């Protein structure tokens, strides 16, 4: 009884070889590139068994690999078939075990090994329905031919990875800055007024920049849409082009006196159109809102057939607006009424005018400010009966949750939006509250509420440790600005300009380090910089290093992904 597996050393060898052969058959998986097939011929052969490659002696142990049945097929198939070399891998490992398990099998019904070899055999085929003159455990040279490794492999580069970590570091830095501010205030080393004052000034500056971005974006969108419209209208007349240029001029000039051309609607023949009426109503609902001039309506008057259908979306956009998150609530009813009546595909509603937006922002800012002011005395004694230890622990946990749940999304929403925009025919550089009628992407762009909530909760419990109402108020105001508004700004900045994003990150890192140094001591600052280096460069480096070990296997056994034609989604 010839027996393979019983030789004392073989099992371990086979055990190891089995795993090694498959999991890292290639000791240097570095040269992975897209769709490399596993059996990387020369490498594997040479590395794994220098002596055994490509010329297996017709060993008695295995009939299989030696067999390339008739010369024709072997010569015909071998060159382009790397899996042949797969056997170069497997064969030696088996040979170490002594006689292979297959020797034990006679498979007499299918012809013994000798018989098979002497007879001229047809090449083996990977089919079950043919009765082939090969044993059932025959392993052909084509074995695992269709195996694919690391199909979607994408090699990371160092600097892009580091750049991607900046988002995390930015958020870490804001948390560090906040904690520093709290410690400084509670230790009475810093007047709370300075904290709140500085941050408020910075916030206002940030808001002004934000506002500017909105304005630019608006112009771009208008231009793009006009260009689109011109394309669709081309052929009707050259007049359309004039109207457009007029309008863009109007919009470009913020100082242009705004006129409400509501009268146009009623005088126009198109106003009898039932679609037009809700417009007028909604416009009159918000009469205080200045609406930019609609010169188009004149064009519309000249071409009544065009106007009724074309004006509506424009007018819709006049009233509804996504210009600022706080404005939404005002405009929502009008919007919904409109969208119900005018059965139009969601066309981008325009933001309210600049002044209007600014006013409403100011209003909500005032509201928050006064609410905080009113709440501060209550919050001051909120956790009076709780020990400080619990508060430290609680706030640590809350900040941890905040860090974990924060939406670090790397330009996903933007990419989506841009894609949609591209599909619609124009490119939109909307990173923030861009209108573009994309309610979903708008929502997506708000940082996840959980992280914001936890950050605010953490600051509330921390603030309740403070003794003076003014301190509480300052720290809360600071936290709202830092955790509520600043992420929005950061995100949009990152989208718009990577240079300023990096600059902001650097400034934040340095500022956080300085804060730690002055509020605590230089040990903490050192640790902070270490963390930044480790989290940015170190982690990227480790990730790149680990990529060598990526070994994703694909093959015909994977469930297929069904492909549907687009038609299905259209209806």
């Amino acid at each position, binding site marked *: 009884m010839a*027996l393979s597996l*019983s030789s004392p050393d*073989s099992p371990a060898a*086979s055990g190891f070889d*089995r795993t090694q052969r498959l999991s890292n058959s290639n000791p240097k998986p570095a040269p992975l590139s897209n769709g490399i097939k596993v059996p990387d011929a020369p490498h594997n052969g040479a590395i794994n068994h220098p002596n055994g490659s490509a010329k297996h002696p017709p060993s008695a142990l295995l009939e299989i690999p030696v067999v390339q049945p008739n010369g024709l097929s072997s010569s015909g198939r071998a060159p382009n078939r790397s899996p042949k070399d797969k056997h170069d891998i497997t064969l030696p490992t088996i040979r170490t075990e002594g006689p292979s398990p297959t020797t034990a099998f006679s498979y007499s019904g299918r012809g013994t090994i000798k018989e098979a070899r002497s007879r001229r055999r047809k090449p083996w085929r*990977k089919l079950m329905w043919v009765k082939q003159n090969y044993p059932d*455990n025959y392993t052909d040279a084509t074995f695992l031919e269709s*195996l694919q490794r690391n199909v979607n492999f994408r090699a990371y580069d160092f600097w892009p990875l580091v750049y991607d970590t900046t988002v995390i570091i930015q958020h870490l830095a804001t948390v560090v800055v906040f904690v520093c501010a709290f410690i400084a205030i509670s230790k009475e080393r810093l007047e709370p007024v300075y904290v709140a004052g500085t941050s408020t000034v910075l916030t206002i500056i940030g808001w002004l920049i934000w506002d500017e971005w909105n304005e630019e974006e608006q112009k771009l969108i208008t231009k793009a849409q006009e260009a689109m419209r011109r394309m669709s209208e081309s052929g009707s007349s050259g007049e359309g082009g004039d109207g457009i240029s007029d309008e863009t001029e109007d919009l470009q000039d913020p100082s242009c006196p705004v006129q409400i051309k509501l009268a146009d609607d009623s005088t126009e023949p198109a106003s009898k159109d039932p679609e037009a009426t809700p417009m007028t109503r909604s416009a009159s609902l918000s009469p205080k809102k200045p609406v930019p001039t609609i010169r188009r309506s004149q064009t519309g008057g000249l071409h009544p057939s065009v106007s009724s259908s074309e004006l509506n979306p424009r007018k819709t956009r006049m009233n509804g607006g996504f210009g600022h998150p706080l404005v939404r609530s005002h405009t929502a009813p009008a919007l919904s009424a409109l969208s119900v009546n005018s059965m139009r595909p969601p066309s981008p509603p325009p933001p309210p005018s600049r002044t209007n937006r600014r006013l409403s922002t100011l209003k909500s800012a005032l509201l928050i400010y006064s609410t905080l002011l009113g709440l501060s005395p209550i919050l001051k004694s909120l956790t009076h009966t709780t020990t400080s230890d619990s508060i430290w622990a609680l706030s640590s946990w809350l900040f941890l949750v905040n860090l974990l749940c924060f939406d670090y999304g790397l330009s996903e929403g933007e990419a989506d939006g841009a894609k949609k925009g591209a599909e619609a025919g124009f490119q939109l550089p909307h990173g923030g509250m861009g209108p573009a009628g994309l309610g979903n992407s708008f929502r997506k762009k708000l940082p996840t509420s959980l992280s914001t909530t936890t950050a605010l909760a953490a600051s509330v419990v921390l603030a309740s440790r403070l003794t003076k109402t003014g301190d509480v108020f300052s720290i809360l105001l600071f936290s709202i600005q830092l955790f509520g508004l600043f992420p929005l700004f950061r995100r949009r900045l990152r989208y718009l300009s990577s240079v300023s994003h990096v600059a902001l990150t650097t400034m934040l890192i340095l500022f956080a380090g300085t804060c730690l140094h002055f509020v605590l001591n230089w040990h903490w600052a050192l640790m902070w910089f270490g963390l930044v280096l480790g989290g940015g460069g170190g982690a990227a480096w480790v990730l790149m290093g680990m990529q060598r070990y990526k070994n994703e296997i694909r093959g015909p*056994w994977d469930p297929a992904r069904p*492909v549907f034609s687009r038609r299905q989604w259209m209806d």
Partner: protein
Amino acid sequence: MSYNIAMVSDFFFPQPGGVESHIYQVSSKLIDRGHKVVIITHSYGDRTGVRYLANGIKVYYVPFWVVYRESALPTVFSFFPIFRQIVLRERIDIVHGHGSLSAFCQEGLLHARTMGLKTCFTDHSLFGFADAASILTNKLLKFTLSDVDHVICVSHTCKENTVLRAALDPFTVSAIPNALVSKDFRPAENPPPTSTITIVVISRLFYNKGCDLLVATIPRICAQHENVRFIIGGSGPKAIDLEQMIEKNVLQDRVEMLGPIRHEDVRNVMIRGHIYLHASLTEAFGTVIVEAASCGLYVVCTQVGGIPEVLPSEMTVFAKPEEDDLVAATSKAISAIKSGTIRPELFHDQIRQMYSWTDVAERTEKVYDGIMRLRSSRLIDRLKRYYGCGVWAGKLFVLCAVIDYLIMIFLEFWWPRRNIDVARDWPRKKVVRQVSSSPTDVEGAEERNGWVSDLQDQG
């Protein structure tokens, strides 16, 4: 030489299914060949204890906890005492496990190795490598299979998959197909007229059976071809999608949903149709398309998993798992049926020669012959093999094997072998133990070889 074989699996009668019928048919044919077969499975409802099935198959329904879809709770050791009892009572030589998701099978193989028995394992399904469940199963499989004497897979693709999953030596893995009882799948005596083409779909209605593709393609096929009807058999979570599709496209008079179909009724449904449509996304073997072809249906199927190996190309139209391609393939099949260029009624005889359980049992027997010739390995060798399974897993596996061994020693002490009664065997059939003894077999082999070579020449 005849063996005492124990088939161990979670999946067995009364539950219907491919693994179940495979175990039953192979066992039955092995008994015909003079072996003794017992089947060990977990209890199904009040079906507990020992039962006999036709042909003297003895089934042990072991009371055990069932966790999910008739899989037993994976406790590594708790099955050992009763397993040892059964094995000793029945004087088992070979333990043959079925189905990689069966905890019973995996445990049984482990204990059998501990007791020094020969083991064999049949894998019936394909697994990916990406999701967590697969990774866990694959690790477990590596554990049990690293010490199994031989593995049987139902197709070559399945073999490749199993070799990768369990890190096996490909030469210890055989590919032996499933089969079908061809007399249960005869074509209709009076084939339905081809004025109206009927397309049959019989499968469990799950995502991986490609129900989404069916939902997408059926309305398009109905729109393209006037006289086409569909019959859909089977149940599952995707049935609701199909019903919605029917209502949305107002196809009530053209698509008939039959609901669950018992295996013995499959033929009656199939012979009502001309074409069998199989849109599965993954399939190790696809017995159902063989059954359909045997019933004289032209098969349209997606080219996934082991399916391309199963049927010759003149019986099938292959399609990519894409909506457009499937529609095109079905249209091709419809026009082929209408023009009469293919003769599906001839498929039955060809299938009969391709697949039979007798052949499967014969090939399985050869595997048994092979593993019975292997010397059983010492514990230390087994431990070495387990140790090679992974950095951490290897140590864990060694620990499990050692504990299993200690349990066996304890059981030998607590419940010695001599105190265990030996069960009386069902009278064995007298079989002349020569492969080519029965004249029909020889004929079949001859015919088959001739036919195959013909086909190859054509191809």
